[in-house]
């Protein structure tokens, strides 16, 4: 456990120290690159405002991820059961993922106004994809010999789904979820930047306008912390749900 924690903590600390030292050594002006201490100071000064915006972003990201995950699972199941639909809509879905965020967001705002709905729609579009795609792969590529076994004993389609395909797709689902959670917070921030009156994105927008770079860095620190929080929650959930995999170092059943 300790061995997993020490190296990243060490590397981040070293990174911050080097950053701090570099700012001192080259005496960079704070409006170009503020040093970490200055950023921390600024965060403390602005903490009540920052916290309010962080909470707003957190809430929106949570809603977006939840809706995106739900949509992802539903899409995966539908496409799994209707193969012709899969081949029909797959190119459309992939295309939707290639529209740049900075195009999609203003379009949605134009169509749906400045309220919650355009941002939620944007998040669903972004979040559902990794889930749907990895889960679909998991559903289809469930162990062929287990599939064969169930077919031989005459399992129904429903039993095939519940006993084999769904559990087999869970590890895929979680890798999709981890990708989704990584994206979600920064997507929310972009959406807020482009049209909102709260959230870290809005805060960033204001601070950049006022050339308050130290505060902007503080906001970035909050974004990173939020993203890590989401990712960590997904990883924790994965560990709680998928308990059947052999732990590393523990050799499982031998078979040719």
């Amino acid at each position, binding site marked *: 456990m300790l061995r997993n924690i020490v190296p990243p903590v060490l590397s981040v600390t070293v990174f911050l120290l080097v950053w701090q030292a570099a700012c001192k050594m080259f005496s960079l002006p704070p409006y170009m690159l503020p040093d970490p201490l200055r950023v921390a100071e600024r965060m403390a000064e602005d903490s009540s405002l920052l916290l309010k915006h962080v909470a707003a972003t957190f809430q929106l990201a949570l809603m977006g991820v939840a809706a995106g995950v739900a949509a992802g699972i539903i899409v995966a199941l539908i496409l799994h059961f209707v193969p012709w639909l899969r081949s029909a809509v797959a190119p459309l879905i992939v295309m939707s993922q290639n529209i740049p965020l900075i195009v999609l967001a203003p379009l949605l705002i134009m169509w749906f106004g400045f309220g919650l709905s355009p941002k939620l729609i944007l998040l669903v579009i972004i979040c559902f994809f990794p889930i749907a795609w990895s889960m679909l792969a998991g559903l289809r590529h469930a162990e062929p010999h287990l599939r*064969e076994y169930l077919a031989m004993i005459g399992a129904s389609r429903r039993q095939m789904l519940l006993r084999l395909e769904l559990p087999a797709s869970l590890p895929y689902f979680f890798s999709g979820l981890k990708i989704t959670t990584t994206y979600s917070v920064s997507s929310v921030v972009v959406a807020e930047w482009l049209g909102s009156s709260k959230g870290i994105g809005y805060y960033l927008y204001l601070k950049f306008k006022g050339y308050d770079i130290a505060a902007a860095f503080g906001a970035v620190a909050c974004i990173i912390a939020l993203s890590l929080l989401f990712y960590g929650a997904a990883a924790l959930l994965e560990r709680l749900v998928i*308990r059947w995999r052999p732990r590393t170092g523990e050799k499982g059943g031998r*078979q*040719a």
Partner: protein
Amino acid sequence: MSPIHKLELSGVSKSYRRRGHLLPVLDHISLHVREGEFVTLLGPSGSGKSTLFRLIGGVERPDEGSISIAGKEMTGKTGHVSYMPQQASLFPWMSVADNISTALVTCGVEKKEAKEQAREWLSRITLGDVADEYPHVLSGGMQQRVSFLRALLMPRDVMCLDEPFAALDALTRAEMQRWLLELWESNRRSVLFVTHSIEEALILSDRIYVLSRAPARILREITVPFERPRRSDVWTLQEFVELKKDVLELLEEGEPAIV
């Protein structure tokens, strides 16, 4: 005249289409398994034994011929046999006990009943203390025992065992044969067993069908003369050695000449 056979195949043929060519795999196979009989299909690798099982299981349909189970026409119908594949095929996300009980539920056993049965039998085969473990902590031999038990407990007319011990080392394999023999002799079920080991066939079965290379035909039907319960040193008998030699010759004859 004949009593109803648990499993009867008459004139079953099957070909696969591969890159435009028709590849005959089974050529008019007729065989039967009586109530409580242990019948083995002995054939070289690739002769179509697993294909035959897929037809019996109803996962695929034969091109010709019919399959009946317990006297009823069952060609192309699933859900009438229990099955033990070559790989243990236990579900990694279910405990050992749940692997067995869910299979029983598939066969229509009531859930509570299935759970009780799984536990009771696991302790009977001295695997009671791993009932709640995931399968990956079990050794290959233990996994095969669970897999066999799962097939044995399914209330179906015929048990189909497809080379269940092929993946095990020689020592474990011999041990598993003894174990299976003992368990089966005290719970006689109708079994169709596939192997390409002549010895294994002679040690375990009541009757053996020897298959040719693909397209598989039945070369000969052998009634194994050794009494039940089988002695563990049956393989030392003169008769055993001779029978083994016969079958070996038969299989070599059945082979197309090597050019």
